[in-house]
């Protein structure tokens, strides 16, 4: 057993932490969310320069052969800084799909684009009526000569507005919820027949609805075996869960610290509110929730870095459940202890709360993964 980071990992963490402290203050972030584009391309370039995009990806994609532990370190810092850039989508998710499903050419070419940060990819996996089930794919892929014609809609594609390409799941065979028959296609944003509806999310991210009408993609854009993409999607989801759990740990760490700080300085009845036993115990419960979440985020990352697919799936389902529960305890208590001030858009805490709330519905919520966990027994 060993819970230590390598020296390289510590250096990366500290460097990223410094960068965020200097160039990604709460005010900077606020401005970025409200800006026309809704993100910070300049910071994206700096992240790339620091090697963050290369960190968790393999050499053949231009990466540094790190793993989910590196991703965890990065995402936790992103969480602490409320970072809104689409690292999760492009590096973790698209990176995972290309690494596992791509052929050598795709790994090299698409990998280079991702690790250099010069292009952004977003997975377009979920559909409205499928809710949290990635096997629910009504979007069809019809063979048309050596091309495929894609038809259908994809729901809530995070990172959509700033993405250059999407990795779209579509079905050539099978019933709507079958795990077999699903394929992955790399679709460029400017492709004929593809339209998007872009929006800002309640927690300050960017996302899109995708509408595909007879989008013709070449056979070369298929990622992996036709009809055999589901295992890759599952693996992507587990890596995404491990990463988003780490982000949540970062968010919760700051939310707890800000709450304690506020409670110590805010006075009512002539004393700091931190002297009230009921609030003290509430903050202890927040700490316990954070420690439990940390443990499970760690477990998820360790299992994603390993090669036991069953253990990985179980750890990630469990971690997503625990993070959802902890985020609720911490988020709700943080606002309650901040009182009226916690309700305002002006204080950072409300933004931590909003992001913590919305994480539950990304990649499946508490109930979904509780059920999934129970079925893996």
């Amino acid at each position, binding site marked *: 057993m060993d819970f230590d980071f390598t020296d390289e990992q510590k250096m990366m963490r500290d460097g990223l932490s410094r960068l965020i402290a200097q160039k990604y203050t709460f005010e900077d972030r606020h401005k970025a969310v409200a800006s026309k584009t809704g993100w910070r391309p300049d910071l994206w370039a700096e992240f790339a320069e620091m090697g963050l995009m290369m960190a968790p990806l393999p050499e053949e994609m231009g990466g540094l052969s790190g793993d989910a532990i590196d991703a965890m370190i990065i995402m936790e810092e992103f969480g602490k800084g409320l970072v809104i850039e689409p690292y999760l989508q492009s590096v973790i998710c698209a990176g995972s799909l290309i690494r596992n499903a791509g052929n050598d050419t795709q790994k090299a070419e698409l990998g280079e684009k991702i690790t250099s940060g010069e292009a952004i990819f977003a997975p377009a996996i979920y559909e409205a009526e499928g*809710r949290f089930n990635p096997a629910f794919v009504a979007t069809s892929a019809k063979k048309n000569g050596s091309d495929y014609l894609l038809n259908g809609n994809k729901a809530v594609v995070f990172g959509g507005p700033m993405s250059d390409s999407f990795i779209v799941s579509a079905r050539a065979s099978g019933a709507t919820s079958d795990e077999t028959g699903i394929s992955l296609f790399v679709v460029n944003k400017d492709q004929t027949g593809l339209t998007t509806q872009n929006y800002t999310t309640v927690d300050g991210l960017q996302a899109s609805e995708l509408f595909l009408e007879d989008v013709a993609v070449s056979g070369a854009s298929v990622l992996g075996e036709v009809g055999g993409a589901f295992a890759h999607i599952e693996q992507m989801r587990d890596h995404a869960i491990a990463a988003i759990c780490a982000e949540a740990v970062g968010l919760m760490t700051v939310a707890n610290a800000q709450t304690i700080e506020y409670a110590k300085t805010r006075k009512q009845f002539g004393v700091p509110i931190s002297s009230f036993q009921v609030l003290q115990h509430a903050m202890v419960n927040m700490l316990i929730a954070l420690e439990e979440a940390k443990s499970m985020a760690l477990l998820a990352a360790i299992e994603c870095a390993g090669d036991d697919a069953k253990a990985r799936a179980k750890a990630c389902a469990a971690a997503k459940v625990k993070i959802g529960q902890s985020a609720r305890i911490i988020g709700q208590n943080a606002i*309650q202890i901040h009182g009226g001030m916690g309700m305002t858009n002006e204080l950072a805490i409300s933004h931590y709360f909003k992001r913590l709330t919305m994480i539950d519905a990304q990649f499946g919520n508490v109930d979904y993964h509780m059920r999934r966990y129970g079925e893996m027994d």
Partner: protein
Amino acid sequence: MKLTFTPEEIAFRDEIRAFIEQNYPQNLKGVGDREDLTKEDYLSWHRILGAKGWSTPAWPVEYGGPGWHATQKYIFGEELARAETVPVLPFGVNMVAPVIYTFGTPEQKARFLPAIQKGEEWWCQGYSEPGAGSDLAGLSTKAVRDGDFYIVNGQKTWTTLAQHADWGFFLVRTNSDCKPQEGISFLLIDMKSPGVEVRPIITMDGAHEVNEVWLTDVKVPVANRVFEENKGWTCAKFLLAHERTGIAQVARSKMGLKKLKKLATETISEGLPLAKDRDFKHKLSELEIDLRALEITELRVLANEQKGKGPGAESSILKINGSVIQQRITELFLEAVGPYGAPNPRAYKAEGGNFAIGPQGAPMAALNYFNVRKTSIFGGSNEIQRNIIAKLVLGL
């Protein structure tokens, strides 16, 4: 012992229901799903009820109340909620008016009550201050006597819908050399007075619902003080007890639950209605049972009131459970819409987007959830309510 209505009560209910059907403004139907209501939206319905004599169900007859007993008031509230009308805002009708008709002078009653009853003047509440939230008595806005006037200086906050207000009722400090509670006075301030400035606070849901109110050398006639100087805390306590009963919001929550169940029936999850999902159904049932328990508890309190036992500290229970149930309803709404909780309608509408994303009911789900986190904070936080119960009911 019985829970059913008498034939007279049923006739009363039908009368209310028919009136709403015939008189509720067409353009205000389904407002529950709209994000922002104008001053006129609120007041138009208030005025219609006022003209009928129904805008002030809790008032004594002599001041313009309809003379209903507790069950009739309950039925009236139920019917308004059922029809999803815009609410008659409580600041005038249920907050300042009872203080005025209980503690005010004949002149104050004559000057203010009719305008409140008719919906001609909009009121706001100047209680909380940046340094005095849960510790309301710790307020520091000062009123210094200068002949027939007070000169008021200070800052209030969390002042709901003050941007529309004609008048405000304020707690101000008129004596600093005593226990905090003993040096407070209750003033009625014309919001158009020189020196009154209302600054918006944007809450985390992006709404402009609350405000800061800055008071700089505001001249307030002494005639606008209710009750004795330095005895304003008596009015404040009286008002807080009144505020807590209404805050249970049972009728509105019942309507919210009904909509939630409809949404669960319409939302498709993996090809099936979410209402068939056992986990979700379990939560719905639990919520419905808790709401039912709250409703019966409120009826028990009302029955006591009808027997002359005023709302006591028990009303704190209604506040606690009522607020938590409102929060749980919005939380389940958000859970129901799943991934479609994410899009921010305020943002994409501000950018000129006029599309709706996700299922009906989805666009406001997250923002409503964020917004009602306030219900366990404002009006005396739930921690404060528990302190009150511990002290006054349990004698701890």
